[in-house]
């Protein structure tokens, strides 16, 4: 197992370096980052002054070297808009985003796991139809639209939940549902498909041939195997939710990283965008690493690998 984890760790580090390189080049995609970051009506003198202040006039490899050196010490420059170190601004927003994403994940899992299991164990039944329907709707309803519609019905019409802001549990409900809806559909489909598939495995036939009861087979032989498939995708979906939170946090004025992305992009605050990009990608890489570790814990085939 050590070797497995070590190789995953090395992979993660290599990937992270790749992310840093990617972000470096994306910001320079237009060839002139200084113009990109300055307001459109900025004077040429101002732009030139900014270019020198940011070091964009240096040769590319020098810029790259400085950038990487900064990155290794967590220094991604200062936000143009907030006039503060970019990375610390991002770090401040972590709790809000994490809270929302975890709530959304919880909502998605709590609904999708039972639904997918019922659908997968009774294909063709009414429950299965419901299961497939929800799986499909989850994939076809855009979360930004869903968020608006939730606001129309539950905030404007019924006044059950606040329209925006982060103020206690009630303010968390609508954003979490909106953000969790897509993963909910995804998980439902996945759990259903994986139950169906596992039910066809030879070892399930063996379990039946031993005279074990349906219930026992489900809990002892199917759940654990479904869990492995689920683990493989929860991390990935959590990463996607960070993306989705750009909409949801903007719509609900949720003070997290997603909303900050939108603000930074609109304000052309690219040092901040850069810091967010590196942070989020790093977070996703970390998630993947955690997923691999979780795998190793659940799956003895990896746990006992030499």
């Amino acid at each position: 197992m050590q070797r497995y984890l070590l190789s995953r760790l090395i992979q993660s580090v290599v990937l992270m370096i790749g992310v840093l390189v990617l972000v470096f080049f994306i910001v320079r995609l237009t060839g002139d980052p200084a113009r990109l970051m300055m307001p459109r009506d900025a004077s040429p003198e101002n732009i030139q002054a900014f270019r020198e202040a940011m070091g964009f006039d240096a040769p590319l490899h020098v810029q790259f070297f400085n950038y990487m050196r900064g990155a290794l010490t967590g220094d991604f420059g200062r936000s143009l808009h907030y006039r503060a170190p970019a990375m610390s601004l991002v770090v401040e927003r972590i709790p809000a985003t994490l809270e929302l994403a975890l709530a959304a994940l919880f909502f998605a899992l709590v609904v999708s796991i039972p639904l997918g299991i019922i659908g997968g164990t009774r294909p063709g039944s009414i429950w299965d139809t419901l299961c497939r329907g929800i799986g499909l709707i989850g994939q076809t309803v855009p979360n930004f639209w869903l968020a608006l519609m939730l606001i129309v019905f539950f905030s404007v019409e019924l006044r059950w939940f606040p329209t925006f802001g982060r103020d206690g549990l009630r303010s968390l409900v609508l954003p979490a549902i909106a953000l969790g809806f897509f993963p909910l559909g995804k998980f439902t489909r996945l759990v259903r498909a994986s139950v169906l598939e596992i039910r066809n495995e030879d070892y399930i036939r063996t379990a039946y041939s031993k005279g074990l009861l349906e219930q026992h087979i489900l809990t002892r032989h199917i759940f654990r195997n479904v869990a492995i498939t689920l683990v493989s995708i929860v991390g990935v979906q959590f990463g996607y939710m960070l993306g989705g939170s750009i909409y949801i946090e903007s719509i609900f004025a949720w003070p997290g990283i997603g909303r900050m992305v939108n603000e930074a992009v609109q304000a052309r605050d690219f040092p901040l965008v850069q810091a967010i990009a590196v942070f989020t990608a790093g977070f996703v890489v970390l998630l993947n690493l955690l997923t691999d570790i979780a795998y190793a814990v659940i799956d003895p085939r990896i746990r006992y690998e030499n």
Partner: protein
Amino acid sequence: MNSNVNSNKNDKPILEVRDLHVRFDTVDGVIYAVNGVSFDLYPGETLGVVGESGSGKSVTMMSLLRLIPEPPGRIVSGTARFRSREDDLDLLQLNMRQRAKIRGNRIGFIFQDPMSSLNPLITIGEQIKESLERHTKWRGPEARQRVVELLEHVGIPDPDARYGNYPHQFSGGMRQRVMIAIAIACDPDIIIADEPTTALDVTVQAQIVDLTRRLSEELGIAVIWISHDLGVVAGIAERVMVMYGGTVVETGVVDDLYAHPRHPYTVGLLGALPKLHENVPELVNISGTPPSLFAAPSRCPFEPRCPWAFKTCRERRPALESVQRDGHFSACWYDMEKDKPREVRR
């Protein structure tokens, strides 16, 4: 088929299957997988089942305790009388709970691929124990002790340490031993072994055959041994049943059937065989394609490939009939012995 087949066993059969029909509904059409199969199994004997791929061997045996996928599978009709010391019932009439009480308890199973037949996420000890805990009074440490004994019994070295191992830590042969341990765990009356050695190396095959034979003799278990390998069957079975196109075409005592095959298909199978027991090769290839199973057989299923085929064969389906020797039956309109068509009773 009314028979007192086995001369050396005068008991009643432990299993009497009559006129079993099984179909599969697929988008390509209805597959008539099993078409009126009947056979008997006597206490403690080993019955070999041979036939080419798709002839319905597995479906026949798995249908008895409804281990085929339904749908697409469908058991259309038939009876399967199971008669042991405690029970006398029709397996095909049982409800789910009753069936689950027979499975793994009175009738154990061994499958072809030991690699995929064990749950990769559960220790092999637990996989044997859960069967014990389901059907017997053993619990906890006692059950564990019993599992260790079983492991030892099927020849797994250092069973106490191996209890907590996962399937991937075992070789193919060892896993098949674990499957055997599961099958015998509750001291069953019958074991159905569906090509248990096909996926194994030749040397390991022999060990598994020996182990099964030894255990069935020791414990008095009747065995249904499905195989492609006529040699293996000759080594382990007392009687053989030859299947073709979802029907039984010939059945009899091994020595007799191998020496005097009566059905043209069996003749073809044994084709080049010089003498019984001498390193019998796998099924020889018979020219022609296997029968289509998309229609109920109305004629002899072997007719398109049969060198002896004549008019009656195309019109009516032959039933199993006794051929001279005791317990030797063949479903063929042609009388091999007299080398002429059989009298057809109207």
